[in-house]
């Protein structure tokens, strides 16, 4: 079989297996999603604000909750495979490890990032956002969650040999994700005030591309060290 086809076969096999795994264990997807919906929806009730204030604080709260709920999912990225021994078999396969890591990141984003993006318009409506503002929010969350999957992969792989590493992963990833949080929330606010959103979008897409260029390699190297 040609090398290129073999690589595609390996990538799709890893991607499909992880999606199947998420499908058979829906709690891994639903728990962070319900956390995101509950806290985001509870905020307007707890903080007694009028419509104008709600529109102003909405983007920041949605973004913070999106990142926090997303951090809950990172632990499962490699730890489950390490615990049941699958990680050894993945590392010993003839496929390049960074390619398999990328497949896992893509499956993680589909199962964790995409549901969050799909559900976010409902939260936007709770925060009295206009339809066009919701579209901008979706675009920022698209780049932001994918960047989080990429950067989170490095954090998750670095803590692979540590028990109960959920908090440690969050501590490692959160500071690196601050620029995305700032630009993501600020881009929506700027759109609401009538300013241009392109600079924010450019930054977030560039951040995403930068993370995409090194995250699979850094994660693969960290996994090899963690297996030792």
């Amino acid at each position: 079989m040609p090398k290129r086809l073999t690589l595609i076969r390996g990538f799709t096999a890893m991607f499909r297996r992880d999606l199947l795994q998420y499908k058979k264990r829906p709690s891994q997807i639903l728990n962070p999603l319900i956390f995101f919906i509950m806290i985001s929806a509870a905020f307007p009730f707890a903080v007694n604000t009028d419509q104008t204030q709600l529109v102003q604080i909405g983007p920041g709260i949605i973004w913070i909750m999106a990142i926090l709920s997303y951090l809950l999912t990172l632990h499962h990225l490699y730890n489950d495979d390490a615990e049941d021994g699958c990680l050894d078999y993945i590392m010993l396969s003839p496929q390049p490890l960074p390619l398999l890591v990328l497949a896992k990141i893509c499956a993680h984003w589909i199962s964790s990032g995409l549901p969050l993006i799909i559900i976010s318009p409902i939260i936007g409506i709770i925060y009295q956002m206009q339809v066009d503002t919701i579209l901008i929010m979706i675009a920022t969350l698209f780049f932001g969650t994918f960047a989080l999957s990429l950067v989170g992969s490095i954090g998750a792989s670095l803590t692979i040999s540590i028990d109960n590493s959920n908090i440690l992963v969050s501590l490692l990833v959160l500071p690196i994700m601050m620029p995305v949080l700032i630009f993501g929330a600020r881009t929506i606010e700027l759109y609401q005030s009538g300013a241009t959103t392109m600079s924010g979008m450019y930054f977030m897409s560039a951040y995403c591309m930068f993370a995409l260029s090194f995250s699979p390699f850094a994660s693969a190297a960290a996994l090899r060290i963690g297996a030792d």
Partner: protein
Amino acid sequence: MSNRLTIENLTLFRGDKCLFKNTSFAITQGDLLLVTGPNGSGKTTMLRSIAGLVEPETGTISWNQQSILVNRQTYHEDISWISHNHGFKSSLSILENLEFEAHLYNYSFDKIDNILERLSLTVNKNIPFKFLSAGQKRRASLARLALNKSSLWLLDEPTSNLDAHAQDIFKEILNEHISNNGLCVLATHHPEVFEDSTSIIELN
């Protein structure tokens, strides 16, 4: 070219404990090497270092006169690995797990029905892995071996949890592999089971 695994001056520590020091050996086609020793003597670690999962303090591990660290992918095409952990996803069935590996390791999936039949797993092939007994899980690991056609097998306690019948099937599969010019490094507490072994290393 005949396949050859060469270990030279291998030294490995776990924390402050030296598991083995300046260990050297070589095996070629048709060889079955047994690694024995009490619990904690480093059998699994030795297999993991031969697989390239653990980096030794000193020494070199070569496959066909080339260090295994030079071209990992080529080396991985030639090895099969069975460890204590089964390496199957608990929520997926045997069939789903093996299909994934067939794609990942580029081996043919055509003979799967025959192999599952031989290992008495046909009835259980669509049941989630977590619902299988310990022995059935071990048999599923053996199915992985029978499907994969790689030259070097690294097996860590492959007969644990197997009944007498399954042990016989495993020995048949192993003998087929060895007689087809395969190589095998096998860690076990029961070396007497493998009377056809060509050499034994005892770790203390």
